[in-house]
């Protein structure tokens, strides 16, 4: 998705005339800023920001089109306090991917801080100050966070360092050039003097922020790319003290649960709430456009109250088909040409003279994100007509706009206190603010106290915004030399961009870029390529899901490639390497994974290896999976080797963890994950039906990072696309049957 967004001309352009370079100072803070910033001011902290001039980005080799947010205020990122802590303000949500640690590492490197003094905090919601340079609003997604913050945080760290150095030099009356900084200590060797950051902060804060600062060369890094830095949340998440949105307890707050239509697109026809109101502890029942809200003094009571509601639903506009019927409808659609996503050469002619032709139909089910922390948000109405929201907020910019519309206030009157999020996988980033809008609607209707809206797990599993159901039909031809002479691919699946504010940006000529990414732009050279798309609408709500379109396109492509390799009589790795000679970074991760996995070395009977390689979010990943198929046909994934090239690695252990987790994510859903509907109603209700990956399913995972000083790209999503097809290709090697319908459990393989 990222590169599609980058191509758009609609990105905001910097219009203010403030000097480019690093700027900003605490004294310029508007009085409305968040409390800890005020506290920082009161205690004499040094607060440093950075503004990104687009020329600097261009010089740094950033993709064209990225510009700094258009706002003259300082963009504050670093707070150095008298207590010697250094706090980095994270404008991105940390939902487990470790971004707070990553952002702090970037600052600490340029600042020459000691890792032990680093802290993280979530920045206030303010798209003008903390917008994602790729989106134009504040938000986290598309594995963009490190790439987005790389320049501005290095600049902020370097500026803060320069101010500390200047302060120490003045205090000691020595030349600036003789002052050094290491591990949070500023020193002058000749006079054997040294001072900690915290002791300089108050004086340093009085200096102007330097406009031009030199950044370190990669060879001088002492923290970036180095092992041994613990995550900043590694203690608070092991003693129960980390606060998630679910743990917010505001004075007087009440808990709400919402009864929503069991069918997508259904609305409330009538409500009998007598029994619900009779439940002791239920405070109110509100019938609203989004459903029926039960407000109670605690969560358990609210859930019991909701169970007592008697609601008649109007299903006249609802989806009433089951997924079997939907799939049958998709197959009919697939008989007809769709909107053209790629068209080069002459596919028909190429097939007519093809040596070997392979055809496959792939089916990908609806999938829920099911983050461990069920969706929830607390909304308190403020006296100025705005509100404060406590949530694991991922698209602050969208949420501010939508909630402002709900409350009839300005977006800047919607304050968001972003919390650690218990997973997301895409679910918390929605184009209509979704559950946060629900919470605001309920808080407004109730009006008496802060409202904590809680989704139960059943609400989550049955609540939609799924990875869409997709059908792929692929026909491809290969010659005896291993060249792919023709590739025709028809994709059918819902667009989750249609009807959203992102539609114009993401849908061109009837093609939703997120439905075809990884297919229409595949790296393998195909002289005659045709990819087209049907996007049938349905009231079933859908959404991006960790790695977005690549979740299905990479699987279809990579399983197809193994079939073509077999048809050409080639080894799967050798076949790919021959095709990827113009894609050195893909070829490199493929070779690395194959070498580390012992590709080609014999395995015991019943075991085989499978491989897959793919680029997504500007990151290159290859997986080799070692798989057992027993005599009952059941699949076990024994060992997985991953190679990743995400440019300059900031935190090797965090990237490794993301690859481990993404591997489990991809494989777990491929094995058993599916959401199905019968007569429009979701069949699964909880983790007893939507079956998650568990400890005993998890293979051994070995991760190998490519040593690179290219600009850093993302790591949260790119480990997903190749994990499942590597397993499928190992099964193919053992059984001769490509796994074309997911999940594997459908074929009795689990």
């Amino acid at each position, binding site marked *: 998705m990222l590169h599609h967004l980058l191509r758009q001309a609609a990105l905001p352009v910097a219009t203010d005339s403030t000097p480019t370079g690093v700027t900003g100072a605490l004294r310029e803070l508007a009085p409305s800023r968040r409390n800890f910033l005020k506290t920082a001011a009161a205690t004499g902290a040094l607060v440093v920001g950075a503004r990104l001039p687009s020329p600097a980005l261009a010089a740094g080799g950033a993709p064209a089109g990225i510009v700094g947010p258009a706002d003259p205020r300082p963009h504050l990122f670093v707070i150095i306090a008298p207590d010697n802590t250094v706090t980095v303000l994270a404008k991105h949500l940390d*939902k*487990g*991917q*470790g971004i707070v640690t990553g952002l702090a590492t970037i600052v600490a490197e340029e600042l020459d801080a000691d890792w032990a003094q680093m802290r993280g905090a979530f920045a206030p919601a303010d798209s003008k100050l903390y917008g994602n340079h790729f989106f134009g609003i504040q938000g986290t997604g598309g594995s963009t966070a490190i790439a987005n913050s790389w320049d501005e945080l290095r600049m902020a760290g370097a500026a803060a360092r320069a101010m500390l150095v200047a302060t120490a030099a003045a205090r000691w009356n020595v030349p600036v050039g003789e002052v050094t900084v290491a591990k949070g200590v500023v020193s002058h060797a000749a006079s054997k003097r040294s001072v900690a950051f915290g002791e300089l902060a108050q004086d340093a804060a009085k200096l102007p922020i330097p406009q031009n600062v030199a950044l370190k060369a990669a060879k001088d890094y002492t923290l970036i790319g180095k092992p041994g830095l*613990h*995550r900043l*949340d*590694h*203690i*608070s*998440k*092991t*003693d*129960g*003290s*980390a*606060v*998630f949105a*679910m*743990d917010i*307890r505001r004075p007087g707050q009440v808990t709400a649960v919402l009864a929503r239509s069991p069918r997508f697109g259904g609305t409330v026809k009538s409500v009998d709430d007598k029994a619900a109101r009779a439940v*002791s502890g239920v405070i109110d029942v509100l019938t609203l456009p989004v459903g029926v809200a039960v407000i109670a003094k*605690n*969560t*358990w009571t609210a*859930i019991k109250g909701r169970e007592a509601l008697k609601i008649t639903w109007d299903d006249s506009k609802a989806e009433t088909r089951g997924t079997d019927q939907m799939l049958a409808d998709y197959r009919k659609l697939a008989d007809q040409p769709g909107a053209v996503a790629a068209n080069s050469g002459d596919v028909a002619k190429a097939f007519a003279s093809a040596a070997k032709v392979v055809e496959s139909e792939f089916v990908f089910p609806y999938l829920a994100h*099911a*983050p*461990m*922390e*069920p969706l929830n948000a607390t909304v308190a109405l403020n006296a100025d007509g705005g509100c404060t929201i406590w949530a694991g907020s991922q698209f602050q910019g969208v949420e501010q706009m939508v909630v402002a519309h709900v409350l009839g206030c300005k977006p800047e009157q919607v304050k968001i206190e972003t919390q*650690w*999020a*218990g*997973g*997301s*996988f895409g679910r918390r980033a929605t184009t209509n603010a979704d559950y946060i809008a629900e919470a605001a609607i309920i808080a407004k209707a109730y009006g008496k106290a802060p409202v904590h809206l*809680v989704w*139960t*797990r*059943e609400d989550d599993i049955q609540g939609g915004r799924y990875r869409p159901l997709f059908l792929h039909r692929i026909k491809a031809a290969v010659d005896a030399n291993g060249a792919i002479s023709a590739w025709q691919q028809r994709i059918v699946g819902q667009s989750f961009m249609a009807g959203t504010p992102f539609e114009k940006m993401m849908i061109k000529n009837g093609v939703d870029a997120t439905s075809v990414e990884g297919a229409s732009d595949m790296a393998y050279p195909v002289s005659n390529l045709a990819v087209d798309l049907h996007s049938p609408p349905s009231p079933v709500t859908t959404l991006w899901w960790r790695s977005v379109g690549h979740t299905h396109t990479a699987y279809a492509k990579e399983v197809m490639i193994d079939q073509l390799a077999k048809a050409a009589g080639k080894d799967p790795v050798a076949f790919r390497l021959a095709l990827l000679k113009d894609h050195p970074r893909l070829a490199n991760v493929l070779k690395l994974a194959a070498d580390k996995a012992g590709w080609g070395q014999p395995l015991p009977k019943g075991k085989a290896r499978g491989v897959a390689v793919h680029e997504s979010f500007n990151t290159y990943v290859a997986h080799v999976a070692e798989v057992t198929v027993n005599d009952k046909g059941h699949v076990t994934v024994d060992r997985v080797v991953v190679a990743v090239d995400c440019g300059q690695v900031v935190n090797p*252990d965090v990237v490794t*963890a993301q690859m*481990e*987790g*993404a*591997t*489990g*994510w991809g494989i777990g859903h491929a094995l058993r994950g599916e959401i199905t509907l019968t007569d429009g109603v979701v069949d699964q209700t*909880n*983790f*007893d039906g939507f079956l*998650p*990956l*568990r*400890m*005993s399913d*998890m293979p*051994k*995972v070995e991760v190998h990072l490519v040593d690179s000083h290219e600009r850093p790209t993302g790591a949260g999503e790119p480990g997903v696309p190749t994990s499942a097809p590597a397993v499928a290709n190992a099964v193919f090697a053992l059984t001769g049957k490509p796994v074309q319908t997911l999940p594997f459990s459908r074929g009795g393989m689990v």
Partner: protein
Amino acid sequence: MIRITVNGQERQVDVPEDMPLLWVLRDELNMTGTKFGCGIAQCGACTVHVDGAPTRACQTPVGSLAAGAKVTTIEGASGKVAEAVRAAWQKLDVVQCGYCQSGQIMSAIALVSSNTNPTDADIDAAMDGNVCRCATYVRIRAAIKDAAQSVRA
């Protein structure tokens, strides 16, 4: 009024007997380290110890606790094994989103308390009820082995 003992302290709560222990801890006692994940004992995020045994608080009506039963939550987990497990979790940077980890740690403490040399199969058996959507399982397994080794040493 119902009396329960949590982390060594006797507490009184004015709730119905069928209210699950999970909600008593979270909403009545404001002890939010124990997490709500599924409500049907399928994910283990709410795992606490009742008299040392790992127990899903979401399926434990507070009225069903035996008189004098000792409830231990993540906030109160202490002792040699608990310290070893926490230290291993921190040493290996197990956590990602962290939401399931209270439950994972409570299950792991119970495992290592009864088995100081768990095999992979023992770990599978003891931990399969604790879901981690971030799939930190590789590190959880390694951390359990690391903690068990420190307890043995």
